[in-house]
């Protein structure tokens, strides 16, 4: 059953990711990195289920590193994508230096 989920998700991944243009390959890697922070859900259980001291400590470290990826990963991906702008006006008629959106 779980193997089923894995194979299907991999297949969906192939279809979706093959359509990402090279223009956005760095944001793609950065975004999948942030998404991989989902290992946080496993870490939360290890840290909070009160199973054993070893498990709690390892879990807490895992929560920390996974959170770094989630928080840092989404912020940097958003920051990067905000830099991608279209040229909708001729540069010759852009006299003002006021910020344009």
């Amino acid at each position: 059953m779980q193997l089923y989920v894995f194979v299907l998700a991999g297949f969906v991944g192939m279809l979706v990711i093959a359509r990402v243009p090279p223009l956005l390959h760095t944001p793609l890697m950065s975004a999948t990195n942030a998404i991989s922070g989902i290992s946080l859900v496993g870490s939360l259980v290890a840290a909070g289920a009160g199973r054993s001291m070893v498990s709690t400590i390892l879990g807490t470290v895992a929560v920390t590193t996974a959170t770094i990826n989630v928080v840092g990963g989404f912020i940097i991906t958003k920051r990067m994508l905000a830099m991608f702008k279209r040229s909708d006006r001729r540069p010759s008629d852009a006299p003002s230096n006021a910020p344009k959106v």
Partner: protein
Amino acid sequence: MRELFVQASYLLASVFFILGLKSLSRAETASRGVTLAATGMLVAIVGTLMQQVIIDYRWIALGLTVGTVIGVPLGTRVPMTAMPQRIAIALTFGALAATLVGIAEFHDHADTMAFGQRIAVAFEVVLGALTVAGSFVAFGKLQEILPGRPLTYRGQNAVNFALLGVLVLMLGAVVAGVGGPMLFYGLIALAFLAGVMLVMPIGGADMPVVVALLNSYSGLASAATGFAISNNVLIVSGALDGTSGFLLSMLMSKAMNRSFANVLFGAFGSQAPGGAAAAGSSDLVATAISAEDAAVQLAYASNVVVVPGYGMAVAQAQHQVRELAELIEKRGGEVRYAIHPVAGRMPGHMNVLLAEANIPYDKLYDMDEINGDLSRADVALIIGANDVVNPAARTDPTSPIYGMPILNVDEAKSVIVLKRGMSVGFAGIDNMLFYQPRTRMLFGDAKASLVKLVTEIKALS
């Protein structure tokens, strides 16, 4: 009831992740998609915290707080030129989380684990530890803490194969349940060592492939975590991550005309540089051009194609490039950018660097989009690129880069190359483009040359 809520939150998160990645197929929708994926993440976290097994929130709060405190500056402060090492260190963190969860799982349940779970945990820690060590070495090389050149020794491949062989045997033993805890921890240590040994011999120029491949391993490690703790959202995102990394590394090695095996075991850059340089090249003369003449040529061109390479990024010259392009555009010329898939140090890196310098992304063209159109260009301006514009890849079957897809700038009406000197590129081979009758060399530091070009063009009007 509560369990149903948890599962629903995971399903929703999985859907949001897929939709988020789908929106990355267009620049217009990409940012919204990332917000969607982040929302999915939040939903999954809240869902997990609602689980009945979680009884103690103190340690969780500590981890979340420390992680956020470290994560925010890693998101807001890291410069775009440092993206490759930023990704490498993030892979280290991600894989570390997966490995630690695997160890915790083994520590608590080693005796009660079902066979399937045992397989999952074993793969989780092996892939995890391999990725932790491998990405950390990659980070060190990219950050230049470690030497970027390939570190090789005699019999290296034999040692690495032996290491992998022992790793597979130990993995089998752990799965079969023989050997006990010591074998399990030995397996982790060996996987860690293998990660170091496998990435050490790989040179800086090949890092894009390695980082993408490690991304794939880290995805598989978190999918294995999902199998180990029966968590579908982990399996789904691990599979997405795994395929993404795999597709990108395939793409990169294709763009460099190398097979996977060649990147991993070939140590390309370790051939004595210059040894491969064309022997007869000494009687060829490259024609230099002054900044004044180059400026005139650019100022009166109506169709300019800029080919940026890693050299431009190193010189931090992207802002000067934009300034030059704006001047040419003001005079009525069209400026486009031709981006080779391996320009920069990771997939798509050059696009981000140019976007950061406020160059509109609709002027950035992939190799396949612009190659058929390069013969129309009045001037092709090569800034810090070498091997990716070397016509030998098309014409000289004896060249080490023969067959590699290149930008056909030799078809342009004229070519201006900004270059420090006549040194060879990563591949260590001479570039016939520089000796073409239509090619002019503007020697000097890329940034300084661009500043000169800008001043000269301004003086013209």
